[in-house]
């Protein structure tokens, strides 16, 4: 039995340090205000405090910590992207993820499973090969594997797909992992608040005050806060925030849905994605199959669930795993994905002095949590875009310096 477990067990609950402090009043002013208490916001607060010594920080969360897309994604972490910019960025993220449990003193269940992106057409095979070649170029462990290899690793998968769309090969990405998404947010939150950052839940920003092209502070449902630096890290709510500062972004918000089955004894140890069939699946350590498909076809700012989604997903799922027909879907839910035209994020400084944006995370936000927090903290602390995020600036949409990650999205768009 691990020693830590003994230590934890012998402690009374009240002796265990709180993850999050009790509610307390807002201060009049902070050096930095972070809007959004999800993984990204918490990570940014954490690195601001830890690496830049900036601790007079407030994270404002309209709901509860990690209640947005942090708690709604399917927890996959990978770096097998298509562009140089994407690969470098997500590679950093994977490396940070690998050490988070130790850093937090909290097990985030970072579990490396191997990630198969199946190709059912020769054009998909071309894209897989492209990703593999770009990945290898940057030292990322990705390769195109043939059907025989897939069969060996996932013997229970019907590579014939019920006679239609047979699997032709796959992009195999060994570092592909899953992690306990909530724990990532909690770990960052605890680490941040231990260093003096304040986290305020149920605190909604209603207005951003500016003067002479500079940020002055934010109005909240609990009063006004003065701050010269405000960061928006709110995923699907980004349009609401950017509207407050009259900023235009090309973001469109689409619901992305997911569901889980009733728990069964774990049998699936890899992560399987099929773009053609609109399926991605992994099995959690609770035994649930965690599944997603593609973003909803129409723009919508809502987290309602639809029947079409779960009907379509289960139908396609059976093409790969016929035996899952005997399982039951236990719960479905949705998140709001803020999607950019080039399927890459928007990060860094903006035209408004003191206003920083971390948005456009679409369906790939969770896996970027550590690196986005780290690079945004750097950017805010130095008021200078971190090198890794320079390609992701908002201005690229005017300058036509797009990044082009559509081919690497697991999720259909």
């Amino acid at each position, binding site marked *: *039995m*691990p020693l*830590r*477990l003994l230590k*934890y*067990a012998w402690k009374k*609950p009240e002796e*265990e340090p*709180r993850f*999050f402090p009790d509610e307390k009043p807002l201060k009049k002013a902070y050096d930095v205000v972070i809007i959004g208490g999800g993984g990204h916001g918490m990570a940014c607060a954490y690195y601001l405090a830890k690496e830049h010594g900036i601790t007079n920080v407030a994270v404002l969360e309209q*709901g509860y*910590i990690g209640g947005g897309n942090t708690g709604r994604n399917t927890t996959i972490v990978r770096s097998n992207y298509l562009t*140089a910019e994407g690969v470098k960025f997500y590679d950093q993220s994977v490396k940070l993820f690998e050490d988070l449990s130790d850093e937090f003193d909290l*097990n985030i*269940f970072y*579990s490396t499973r191997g990630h198969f992106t199946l190709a059912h057409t020769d*054009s998909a095979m*071309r894209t897989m*090969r*492209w990703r*593999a*070649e*770009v990945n290898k*170029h940057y030292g990322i462990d990705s390769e*195109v594997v043939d059907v025989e290899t897939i069969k060996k690793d996932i013997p229970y998968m019907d590579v014939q797909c019920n006679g*239609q769309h047979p699997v032709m090969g796959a992009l195999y990405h060994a570092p592909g992992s899953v992690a306990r998404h*909530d*724990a990532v947010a*909690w770990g960052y939150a605890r680490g941040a608040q231990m260093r003096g950052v304040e986290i305020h839940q149920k605190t909604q920003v209603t207005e951003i005050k500016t003067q002479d092209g500079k940020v002055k502070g934010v109005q909240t449902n609990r009063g006004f806060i003065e701050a010269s630096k405000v960061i928006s890290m709110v995923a699907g709510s980004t349009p609401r925030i950017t509207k407050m500062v009259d900023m235009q972004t090309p973001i469109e918000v689409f619901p992305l849905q997911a569901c889980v*089955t*009733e*728990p069964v*004894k*774990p049998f699936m140890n890899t992560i399987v994605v099929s773009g053609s069939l609109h399926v991605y699946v992994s099995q959690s*350590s*609770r*035994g649930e199959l965690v599944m997603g498909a593609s973003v909803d076809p129409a723009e919508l700012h809502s987290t309602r*669930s639809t*029947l079409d989604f779960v*009907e379509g997903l*289960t*139908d396609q*799922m*059976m*093409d790969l*795993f016929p*035996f899952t*027909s*005997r399982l*039951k*879907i*236990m*719960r479905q*839910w949705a998140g709001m994905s803020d999607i950019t*035209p080039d*399927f890459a994020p928007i990060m860094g400084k903006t035209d408004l002095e003191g206003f920083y944006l971390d948005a456009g995370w679409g369906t790939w936000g969770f896996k970027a949590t550590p690196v986005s927090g780290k690079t945004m903290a750097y950017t805010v602390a130095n008021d200078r875009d971190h090198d890794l995020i320079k390609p992701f600036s908002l201005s690229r949409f005017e300058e*036509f310096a*797009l990044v*082009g990650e559509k*081919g690497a999205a697991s999720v259909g768009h």
Partner: protein
Amino acid sequence: MKLRLSPQPYEWLDRKQIIEFEFEGEVYEGFKGDVISAALWANGVKTLGRSFKYHRRRGLLSLANHDINALFQSKDYPNIRGDVTPIEDYMSVRAVNTFGSLKHDKGTLVEWIGKFLPVGFYYKAFYSPKFLFPKWESLIRTMAGLGTVDTDWTEERKPKRYLHCDVAVIGAGPSGMAAALKAAEQGVDVCLIDENPVIGGSLDYQFANEPDLGAERKRLKKGIASHPKIQVISSAYVAGYYGDHWLAVNTPQGLIKVSAQAVVVATGVFEQPAVFRNNDLPGVMNASAAQRLISRYAVKPCNTAVVLTANAEGYRAALDMKKAGIEVKAILDTGERHCRCVQEAEKNGLVIYHNAEMVEATGKQSLQGIVFRESGHERALECDGLLMSVGWAPAGAPIYQAGGKFSYDERLEQLLPSQLPDGVFACGRINGVFDIEHRIQDGEQAGLNAALYASDEPVPDSMDLRATQAHSHPYPIWEHEKGKNFVDFDEDLQLKDLKGAIAQGFDNIELMKRFSTIGMGPSQGKHSNMNGIRILAKARGQSIDETGSTTARPMFHPTPVSHLAGMRFRPERLTAMHTFHQRYQAKFMEAGPWLRPEYYRTGLPRKMCIESEVNSVRTSAGLIDVSTLGKLEVFGKDAAELMDRLYTMRMSNMKVGASRYALMVDDSGVVIDDGVAIRYSEEHFYVTTTTTSSDNAYRMIQKKVIEWGLSVTVLNRTGQLAAMNLAGPNSRKILAKLTDLDLSSEAFPYLAMRQATVAGYPVTLIRVGFVGELGYEIHVDSAYGLRVWEAIMKAGEAFTIKPFGVEAQRLLRLEKGHIIVGQDTDGLTNPYEADMGWAVHLKKPYFIGKPSLAKLKEMQSRTLVGFEFLSVQAEDVPLESNLVIEDGEMAGRITSIGYSPVLGKHIGLAMVDVALKEVGTSLQIRLSNGRMVKAKVVETPFYDPQGLLQIPQDPEELSQESVA
């Protein structure tokens, strides 16, 4: 069947049919109509399963379709619910998640070390040292999960049905039945959905012994059975409410998708367990579970019972037990009550303790006694049954999913609907109405209102029939220093676990759920969420409303994948010439929903088949089926305007009877589609799209027509028309045999369009040159597609014409340097990069993407180039997507490559940095295995650079009509 009672008035059993089934290797008997849990209980089997974490023995808790501790495994299914699945002959099941057997479960070891596994223990350990984590994880994964999957199980699919009704009533208890009948009496179509095989709900188990209700029961049941407007869907539950009264109703036969005009939610309430030490011992159960056992299955819940109650229902249950011949040792009332039931209990000589507090349940393998506190004294009673009647929580999922809200009624100590969406009505106990006559009356008013709403009539206010006394205990939770007081039976969570979570700062209802996992098991909190909220509210000193609740998402119960998926329908589109392709041994490939010949098998290796098709086109003639192209007809006053706005080239100045390349980009200037446009008349165009983007293009164009307010009609004729491309030096001669049209270059020049008759059928002919030879694209009504095709093949026999497939075409167009959108372009490629600046007419006032292209024209950083190998070993031929490397950095990638039989070498296209674009530049290509090969940038087209072959007689036509 030692605990079986004599026949009960409303039992569900068919006692004539005795069923033998196997459980954990032993054979038991039951009656038809028994569910597994009831049949086992009748046989004295009280350990039905093991708990998820500690592997404690568990029995019946609710007998209401959410007893997650009585889940079974058969050889065909995991997670079979014992409290809802009927027994069948030859059924053989065992408990899920045991190690060894149910009786001797080695998993109980976990309970011994349970002290070391408090809430969230897995967050606190196992991660350091890092290399050990996979070992721990593997152990955790072994312990996790419930049933076992057999990956050899075959696919199972159940057909779906649709059903439309005016009023859908969910729940056929007393108020639901009354609502359905009342609504139907208004003349609307009603659909009554109930979880159980027999309607009646609590009327038949809570009020089975009420003689006064006999007539009412008969009226309701008979009325429903005989009413032509009511359709009863039994053994069915609403898995999800999906907006606009769209219900997913799951039945054993499959999913029914119900579209209603109004919905009555009469789902009732879930009985909530009390929390005290050992409240999970088999024999401790909800009072309603005991009543269901007796009324439905004629099974004695126990021999000697104690009833723990905080409401009148507990007294009624005690009386029911006595009537069933069970010795009722005592009623432990948590307070003091004054109702008819109390008097009746006293009259029946039942012992009542007031203001009682639970201390613990005792027993080894099942309940043997209880300890409680009364007036400061601890007392012990021996019993094998403890019935808990301490409160209720709404079965509110449909209301939550419809966007309704609940708030806590302090008087009733229950969450009640406080805000109902339009067209959703609630009645009965979910609405706080408890008196049985009132429940029926409440159902009637909800049924009436729903019928009015469905008929677009004004809906009057309802009478408030809600109870005035609490039916729930505000905090049915008793601490014990030794713990084992379970709040969530699915997840094995004790009171201390929740307190631990709260103490660590997870003191928000959602955070508490996520950290402790309360409500995340298969019952989704049906018996645990309410107590969880009460515990959190008390710990924080907040009200229940301030504490809030978690979201009740679909599914209401876990719903089979086979039902949600339904039958497998994969649309497949076949072209008019499909039978020909089959006869000619085509190897088919998928192109979106279509099947297209990749090449035709001749018995030779694939490569040689393809090369022979290529040769045939180059030397004589070939025919390819291009019916899968999207085909849109555009007509109306603004047709030319629309075409100008959609495509990069000017279309409005195209002559009637001409054709033009049609390139489409998106707002950011990215190439998204291409095809050929022709002009039939001033206000009538016809344009093709690529196979895969036809639906998207059509949808986008329709949207734009509306946005721009243009007077134009766009017709998608993709499936109505067949199309084929006859190409090769002899194509004119072949076509001439079949048409009277003057095919001479003067009469029918390159890129012209003509309407004519071929083989007797009306067709549209376009002189095209995609593959680089003299060629004609022929568009014809699908009905005649095959005949025209066969006529051409016959006419071409003398010229040894061959059909050719997609692979040959790919090679032919590559030789001409023509791009394939989506292969030679990616998600960001603009026309300048694709070396197609000639197809962009920036002088037009507007087209989609023009502002972007105007800027992009000046900032090109990469471009498509042709390259070739002078000599290359077979194993060194790169693959498409291999990278071009320059100074160690990525400088491009190969988009197309192939061996040209005509040129006798490998040729290809690559998207490279502009620095590498000059002809003669050496490209370093990295193979998949890491080796480098060299290629050379060359001019395109590779084949017939002047384009003389596609315009054999008069080359000047090229400059006249083709490109700007």
